[in-house]
């Protein structure tokens, strides 16, 4: 009995020591699975753990501003001014895509083609039936029924909605004026499902519906995705290559504070609704060891984590972007003595 107790105490003591060195982060739910995967592998190698709480991007921003965590995570980049005001530095980690999905009898995955402007008209409620001339004009040869369109959107505030609505704002002036782009908006029409799961379930249950989900969900649920029109006018399917193309066409070098949306990027193969997810940390680190720990972790993830990211349907950042970010760390994130807390080698 006493032996077990001593053993238990010893284990607790060791765990306690490990926790003391652990990194803490909070924020976006979208990258949570890959951060967890990276953390597991990183801990196996370095014995440094990561305690990441997937509480949502808004929560992540609040937590880092309250300094309760070592880093925050957000799907929505902060604007340069906001970064400056709060003394934060942000950098992207992985890229993902948002994909419109439909439930129309007789229309399979990739058979329906839409442009951003028409997509916005549908979500505005101006196009009410699937055989509307604006839709059939883009889809010669596809038999579209006269079904009423049911719009399904996210009910919870989310980075997915932010990317989707911001893209619609870019492509359709009426959308930009009436609704705008945000992580939650006043939807002109339709029903709200909670989370990607909720949207996927509503679309599956509703004949004639259209919604949008993160890419990984169309694979899990075998949903009928929609081909979208790129900036050059071609229609392409959502694939990991298409997201990677959008990420590599992004002009990261000229994006101050890495405020860059990968929406509607040039290139014939760039998926129009692509976005990166971001990490937020203070550029002045009170405790340099903590800042170093965080940067070491993400440097390790850039170096060795691409395979795991791909396995979970995320798209890793292009190598040149990673190199730039490593330089930006050394130039921006400093300890109390003005020295960089971490220089990647």
């Amino acid at each position: 009995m006493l032996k077990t107790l001593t053993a238990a105490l010893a284990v607790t003591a060791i765990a306690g020591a490990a926790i003391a060195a652990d990194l803490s982060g909070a924020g976006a739910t979208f990258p949570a699975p890959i951060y967890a995967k990276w953390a597991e592998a990183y801990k196996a190698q370095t014995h440094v753990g990561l305690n990441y709480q997937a509480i949502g991007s808004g929560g992540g921003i609040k937590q880092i501003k309250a300094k309760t965590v070592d880093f925050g995570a957000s799907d929505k980049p902060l604007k340069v001014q906001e970064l400056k005001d709060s003394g934060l530095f942000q950098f992207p980690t992985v890229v993902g895509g948002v994909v419109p999905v439909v439930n129309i009898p007789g229309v399979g995955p990739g058979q329906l083609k839409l442009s951003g402007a028409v997509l916005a008209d549908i979500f505005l409620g101006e196009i009410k039936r699937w055989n509307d001339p604006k839709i059939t004009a883009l889809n010669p040869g596809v038999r579209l029924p006269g079904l009423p369109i049911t719009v399904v959107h996210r009910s919870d505030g989310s980075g997915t909605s932010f990317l989707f609505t911001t893209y619609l704002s870019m492509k359709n002036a009426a959308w930009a004026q009436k609704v705008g782009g945000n992580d939650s908006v006043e939807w002109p029409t339709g029903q709200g499902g909670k989370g990607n799961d909720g949207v996927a379930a509503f679309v599956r249950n509703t004949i004639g519906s259209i919604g949008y989900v993160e890419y990984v969900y169309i694979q899990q649920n075998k949903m009928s995705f929609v081909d979208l029109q790129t900036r050059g006018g071609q229609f392409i399917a959502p694939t990991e290559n298409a997201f990677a193309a959008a990420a590599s066409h992004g002009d990261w070098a000229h994006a101050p504070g890495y405020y860059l949306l990968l929406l509607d990027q040039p290139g014939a193969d760039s998926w129009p609704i692509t976005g990166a997810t971001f990490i937020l940390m203070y550029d002045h680190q009170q405790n340099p060891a903590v800042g170093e720990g965080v940067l070491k972790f993400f440097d390790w993830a850039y170096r060795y984590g691409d395979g795991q990211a791909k396995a979970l349907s995320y798209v890793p950042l292009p190598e040149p972007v990673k190199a730039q970010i490593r330089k930006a760390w050394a130039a921006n994130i400093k300890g109390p003595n003005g020295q960089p807390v971490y220089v990647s080698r």
Partner: protein
Amino acid sequence: MSDVSASLSPPAAPKKRVKPRGALFDPIFSVLCAAAATLLLSALAGVMASLLIGGWPAFAKFGISFFTSTTWNPVTEVYGGAGPIVGTLITAFLALVLSLPIALGVAVFLTEFCPSVLRRPIGVAVELLAGIPSIVYGMWGLFVFAPVFANLIEIPLISWAPPGSIWEKIFTGVPNGSGILTASIILAIMILPFMAATLRELFLTVPPKVRESAYGSGCTPLEVVWSVTLPYVRRSAIGAVMLGLGRALGETMAVTFVIGNSHTFPQGIFDGGSTIASTIANEFAEATGEMHTAALLALGFVLFLITFVVLAIARALLGSAKNG
């Protein structure tokens, strides 16, 4: 007789009064009880105050339109809570209407008709139902109940409703199984076991003598329930129903999954709506704007008030029932 009185008479020698053994702890005990009650009250007051303070910017900026407008626009930061407020009242009321008869039926069956072999298993089953987490009801509602409900109820009713009639208006909505009515049904299932279990316990408090004399004077079981059991427990029964209503008003996750989450007034019972609790659950985590957070906290305060008013009305009803 005389022996007994002799033995009970006080002894002649005066004796020092002995304090009872527990007397030392009595003051501590009463202080602890008072502290528990104070803690509860101050927690209540603290929550109310922080909701009011947190929500004050929204009340101050939008004034009365916070209660009358259905605009809920996080982009322009204009918030009106009429949609969620009305949705909360409608779903809770419908849930009560749906579940009360069934809860009464369960309780009456268990106390009047049930063979004693079945009584325990059914009672335990009812209590187990009450223990299922809200999120499980939500998932079940969305993935299992909603598709069945759409196919068996919504689509037939929508296609049956004669054009131009009041039925067409009531049955407006997208037939995918989500909406006000689905949320109310899920809520009804959730508060049912709670109310049934409480009502059963209440019915069991009716002294058997009273019921048996009613049966003895020739009453049917219906008459016994209606004119003996129910009047006997009326006050506590209303309390039980109000507690069920309270749970329905504040229920969050299950409703969020199936209500359809639109901030406008629902057009019909199959249409999407929202409740205060579902709106907060949906948006609080991602509310970055100050006014957005304030509006959500203000909604929370309104929910607090609604619950308070419901309880106050219940008290008033109880009072008048007692006097009348």
